[in-house]
């Protein structure tokens, strides 16, 4: 599904990613852990196609395509989703309008007709309900005045509605209370299927108690320095990065 080969990325002429290798197959859940500033979000943003990140060498193959040949929205059309570490506020644009436009853009990319307003309302209400989001949050402006936890939950609602094949969730578990964490974990597990894959970026073992990863990677200094099973996360939590990696 996604294959990263010796990826080097710099931001404003500073090298951040220094040779990342990673392969995620359909049906798998991977977790990336690592110190602050290790380059985890940089990796996520590069895959999603953010402008300021310059790929100096390496390749990313997404469903057999060179991902860098695709515009950001085309990547989404191909099935990519990025759950943001810091979801952005868009004043004046309702959550509903935003998500409906997003969904229909993706459908258009795939040559499908727009979803009718009625079907869309049914879909989004069901997803919001599953993820414990109050219906009037849907009418509010995108993330404006949302609490930290509400923003993360909103990312999950978006993921559920857009139903991506490959989702990168950048610290979606940070800042959640324990109940929200369980709901979000349930949302991730619902998205976990034979034909989908998920890349979790997290600092905490506690999410991995609810979402069992197939592979855990440790990123330090712009490289994946160690990979292992889910026990690696527990080991990290116990001993810290210095000793494990």
């Amino acid at each position, binding site marked *: 599904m996604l294959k990263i080969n010796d990826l080097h990325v710099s931001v404003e002429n500073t090298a951040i990613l220094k040779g990342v290798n990673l392969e995620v197959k359909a049906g798998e859940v991977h977790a990336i852990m690592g110190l602050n500033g290790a380059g985890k979000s940089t990796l996520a*943003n590069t895959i*999603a*196609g*953010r*402008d*300021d990140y310059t790929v100096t060498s390496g390749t990313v193959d997404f469903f057999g395509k060179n991902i860098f040949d695709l*515009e*950001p*929205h085309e990547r*989404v*059309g191909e099935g990519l*989703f*990025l759950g*943001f570490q810091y*979801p*952005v*506020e*868009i*004043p*004046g*644009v309702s959550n509903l309008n*935003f*998500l409906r*436009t*997003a*969904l229909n*853009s*993706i459908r258009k*990319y795939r040559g499908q007709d727009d979803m009718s307003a009625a079907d869309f309302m049914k879909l989004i209400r069901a997803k919001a309900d599953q993820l414990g989001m109050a219906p009037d949050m849907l009418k509010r*402006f995108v993330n404006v005045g949302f609490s930290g936890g509400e923003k993360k939950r909103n990312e999950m609602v*978006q993921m559920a509605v*857009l139903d991506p094949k490959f989702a990168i969730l950048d610290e979606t578990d940070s800042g959640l209370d324990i109940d929200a964490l369980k709901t979000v974990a349930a949302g991730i597990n619902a998205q976990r299927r034979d034909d989908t894959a998920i890349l979790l970026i997290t600092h905490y073992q506690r999410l991995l108690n609810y979402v069992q990863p197939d592979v855990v990677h440790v990123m330090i200094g712009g490289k994946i320095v160690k990979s292992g099973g889910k026990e690696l996360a527990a080991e990290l939590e116990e001993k810290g990065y210095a000793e494990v990696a």
Partner: protein
Amino acid sequence: MAATAETRQQVEDMSGEYKYGFVTDVEMDMAPKGLSEEVVRFISAKKNEPEWLLEWRLKAYKSWLKMDEPDWAKVNYPKIDYNDMYFFAAPKSMDKPKSLDEVDPELLRTYEKLGSPLREQAVLAGVEGAPRVAVDAVFDSVSVATTFREELKKSGVIFMSFSEAVHEHPELIKKYLGSVVPQRDNYFAALNCAVFSDGTFVYIPKGVRCPMELSTYFRINAENTGQFERTLIIADEGAYVSYLEGCTAPMRDENQLHAAVVELIMLDDAEIKYSTVQNWYPGDKEGKGGIYNFVTKRALCKGKNSKVSWTQVETGSAVTWKYPSCILSGDNSVGEFYSVAVTNNYQQADTGTKMIHMGKNTRSRIISKGISAGKSQNTYRGLVKVLPGADNVRNYTQCDSLLVSSESGAHTVPYIEVKNPTAQIEHEATTSKISEDQLFYCRARGFGEEEAVAMIVNGFCRDVMQHLPMEFAVEAQKLLGISLEGSVG
């Protein structure tokens, strides 16, 4: 002519966004080129006008000759040669007033293409309870059709072309024409008084709430022709009307002048809601061609407790010079101005409002959203004036500018003159660059680049857009997206 067609094709190939840029092929009746007393007489004669109106025009013409073109606005354009354009153009078939059935089918098709169906049946055939809008269509210098007239008549509403009103309701025209915008108010207003061609007249009688939205659809078609329309709307005591004007023009290499005058009068407890969606041809990507939109719009809240609300979405024109204003003369009267001005490529807009507080307890509210893209310049210019006798005035002004490109400019020029210490005036202004974070967030949800900009801009304009009548809000939203096409990258 071949060159024109070629350039037009190029513009379409490159941008393809100005979908109203087609030309209607009808035979035209033109005034001799240029401006002179003869031309003024020609126009008046064409319209069979009474002597008093001809005199009125000639007086304006003489004043205009002595006036200078204003140069204080933050806009640049080559000097206009008033002798190198036509001041009157009418489709030949429009010599006599006609019923809709007799209107040249070519013209009807034009308005259909523009999305403004003149056939009442077409509207009536729609879904039960669908909004109905009465339309006056002005094609170059004449009004070609006014719909729903009979039905409006039943409620006493007068809605007709200005030329007809001159004959049918001379007493109202004589009383109110030029009563809000005097002939010598400014250079372009004086010019309009001399050569105005057609426009819309509306009178809502005492206590009547107009049963439908009224609208005028202005279309410039002929080449090298100026459009000088006049709109006069009178809301008698306790009356209410919501009025909308829409404008488009074909794509032409030459600049075309549009100098309109709009006068609104509200008596006691009356209210007028006036909305504009202005989409004149803005010129091409290199700034060639486009409409000069030099317009004087003013509302007089003459009666107590009267209210006027201007809402404008300005996306077109090469140069816009426009300040819909409110004279709040009646006690407790209210003036509102909600504006979205989008400029792209080489467009220049200098627009805003004047709130003149004369009566006691008068209130005004100004919300202006300027969006600048490409290499355009976008200026908000506004005046809030409180006269000595106006006690307890309140004004709130908010001006927000959004820069979509780094080569564009946003400017805010607020003038405040307060001569009464009880006034409470609030002014807020912000300028921001469209946020990369917002753009990327939208793009990471599947939005194309232009779609992302359109979404963010629509959000930015929401406080204004929500004041548009429902029927037009959706269209205006799309228009914002269209006018920003090609603005990113």
